[in-house]
């Protein structure tokens, strides 16, 4: 198994089992985006995910954090982003919440549509859905909560089948 951590699978499992849930409240800055991405990569590396999946999880978190900070909170220093990571025993569940105006699923354009292919933006949610097993977007009115789930033991190839 080409996992992304150096420890044995059982050792990493035990290490991660001590962590049930961690949560961070972060400013609406690019530094926070980098912190969320880095934390995701570190936590995923402690779980029995393959290296490719660790990268995908970190990238999905980065994209979700960019959405929260840039499109949601619009870098407003009064607004915060909350990022939580939870080990459910068989999955890594990540929730990212912003305090912006709210994102509705039906407003997200399809970046693969011919008319959108050469647009500069609009690929973040698509990449998140490509990389995670489940993605749920909830409009909090105001604010948006996006939940990302990566199941342990589900290969990258089958991941897209279970996405929502």
């Amino acid at each position, binding site marked *: 198994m080409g996992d992304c951590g150096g420890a044995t699978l059982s050792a990493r499992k035990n290490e991660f089992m001590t962590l049930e849930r961690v949560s961070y409240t972060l400013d609406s800055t*690019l530094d926070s*985006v980098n912190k969320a991405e880095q934390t995701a990569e570190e936590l995923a590396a402690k779980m029995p995910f393959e290296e490719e999946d660790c*990268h995908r999880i970190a*990238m999905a978190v*980065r*994209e979700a954090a*960019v959405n929260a900070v*840039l499109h949601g909170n619009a870098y407003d220093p009064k607004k915060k982003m909350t990022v939580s990571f939870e080990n459910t025993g068989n999955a890594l569940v990540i929730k990212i919440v912003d305090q912006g105006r709210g994102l509705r699923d039906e407003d997200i354009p399809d*970046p*693969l549509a011919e008319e959108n*292919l*050469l*647009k*500069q*933006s609009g*690929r*973040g949610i*698509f*990449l998140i859905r*490509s990389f995670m097993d489940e993605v749920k977007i909830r409009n909090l009115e105001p604010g948006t909560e996006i939940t990302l789930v990566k199941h342990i033991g589900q290969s990258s190839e089958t991941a897209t089948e279970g996405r929502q």
Partner: protein
Amino acid sequence: MTMKASNRRVDGVTILDLSGRITLGEGSVVLRDQIRELLGKNEKKILLNLGDVTYIDSSGIGELVSAFTTVRNQGGELKLLNLTKKVHDLLQITKLYTVFDVKDDEASAIKAFTK
């Protein structure tokens, strides 16, 4: 690791060697400024060497698309060289792989530009 960029000229083609991360913020801005600078000098045959680019996010992808359309709209050509597997996969799933002219050999990439 932030992005670094340097350029060189070979047979009328400007090769922009990029390394590091092309992400929201610094990396994307560096790429945008480099393209703008080259077009300002009327260097419109541009080969982006991404061999040492370790990471691209959706903002970086957007910047590549923007560079491609900006150069094309000014009558130039922009091609990509030496994609890593991660960047290759990203362009595949976003259906951009066939939009860009992607090369894996510098010499043949230079020859592929319109004379």
